[in-house]
């Protein structure tokens, strides 16, 4: 019989005993001799038949299909090297960059993405043995112009988005800004007024700091609307 020992929503550290016996488990957990231990500092989540530990810090690990925001750090003849804030550098090949076919003789890679450009991109593939490959030839992907870029812990992105996007939509509505969240912890904020952008950034920073607490959406709403009066 399985038995969950840790309390739901408890802060756990590596090596904390969480549960015994057969149970489904997710990230942040190591199994040893039929017992389940936390492997990271994080928030323990007990969903009845499933347990996991949501890490509070840590590097972004690429996953195929993730939308990420990256910075072009090297331009080659037919490819770009993009920093996506993970332990592995990502490669965007010219074939995957635009819908048009790329001809290395006539086309200049720099005209598409130049050094230092911030791009919204998608991870096409990644595994243990190969560096991640990116694509930008889908709708909505490509260079981001204007706006501001902020960086938070990648593990807190789901919290910034909220349940079905409630949190992020609320911030967008109240601050009248455009916000794009990359799964790698980079967030692009664009507003008509600087004050709006700063307000949105302030809200996101607060979410990051208090990501492990309850009732966050209400507090953020209060914070934004308070300042507008």
């Amino acid at each position, binding site marked *: 019989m399985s038995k969950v020992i840790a*309390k739901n929503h*408890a802060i756990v550290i590596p*090596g904390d005993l969480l549960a015994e016996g057969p149970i489904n488990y*997710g990230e942040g957990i190591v199994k040893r001799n039929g017992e389940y231990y936390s492997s*990271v500092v994080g928030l323990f989540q007990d969903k009845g038949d499933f347990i996991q530990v949501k890490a509070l810090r840590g590097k972004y690990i690429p996953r195929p299909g993730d939308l990420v925001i990256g910075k072009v750090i090297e331009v080659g003849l037919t490819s770009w090297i993009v920093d996506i804030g993970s332990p592995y550098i990502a490669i965007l090949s010219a074939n995957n960059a635009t819908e048009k076919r790329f001809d290395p003789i006539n086309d200049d890679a720099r005209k598409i993405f130049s050094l230092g450009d911030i791009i919204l991109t998608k991870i096409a593939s990644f595994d*243990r043995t190969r560096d991640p490959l990116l694509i930008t030839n889908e709708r909505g992907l490509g260079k981001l112009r204007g706006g501001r870029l902020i960086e938070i812990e990648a593990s807190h992105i789901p919290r910034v*988005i909220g349940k079905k996007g409630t949190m992020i939509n609320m911030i967008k509505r109240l601050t009248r800004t455009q916000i794009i969240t990359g799964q790698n912890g980079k967030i692009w904020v664009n507003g008509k007024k600087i004050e709006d952008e700063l307000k949105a950034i302030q809200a996101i920073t607060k979410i990051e700091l*208090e990501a*492990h607490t309850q*009732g966050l959406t209400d507090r953020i709403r209060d914070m934004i609307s308070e300042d507008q009066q």
Partner: protein
Amino acid sequence: MAGDGSVKLIDEKGIRLDGRKVDELRPVNIKIGVIKNADGSAEIRMGKNIIVAAVYGPRELHPKHRALADRALIQCFYRMSTFSVSDRKSPAPSRREKEISLVISNALASVILTEKYPRTTIDVYLQVLQADGGTRTASLTAASVALADAGIPMKGLIASVAAGLINGQAVLDLFDIEDQKGSGDLPLGYCPVLDEISLLQLDGVFTVKQFEDSLNIAIKGAKDLYEIQRDALKQKYTDIRAEVEVPEKPKVEKPKAEEPKTEDPKVVPKPVLKVEKPKTEDPKPSKDDKKEVE
């Protein structure tokens, strides 16, 4: 290791020069997040020792040929500041520093789940700002806290403390004078979760009985130290929680803000993440995190 008895290190009542009992640790204080630019960091103050640990990584390794195909490389850089001891320490990396860097990185590699990050490196920088004996053990203690702060998955923390021999008696956590005038030194790195020794060195001459006594008090000391490490890691988060949650929820029946009841619908928002149940040992990445694009 003089051990000549020229200095009286323990008095008749069993009290040492700094007022401690034979099995007592020095006052320890650990703080996390002291270096903003690092991925994880910790500062330990153990008696007069002050050591800062900074963790960077997992990150790309240069030169590339040193990368391991199946796991992360752990690189440790233990450095003593020139001003950390009363005689100026030469800034050149010494043989001793290289040895300590190696034993600490080996000890850390035994608890880190390195296979999660193949082809990368995890760099641990340990800077001794003030030294008063037992810096290698204090460094290892701080390093494991800094790694946990960096979010690097581990089997458990390592708590490290030395035991030593003074007049044939086992003594816990030697400071500088005891280290020099005593007759033996036994640094221990111990993982209380696994009940495993990850570092053990020995200097001096011990009988089997003395060795066993020293090892036992060192393990006991390490277990005490582990509690301090654990509090240091949790404190940052429980502090924020206590600050923001208590005044907002006067209705909650439970006075403790740390563990809100699951039944309370107001307190616990439904899990943001819907997760498919992985059946295998290898936890699947949850497909939950919703993406947001304009």
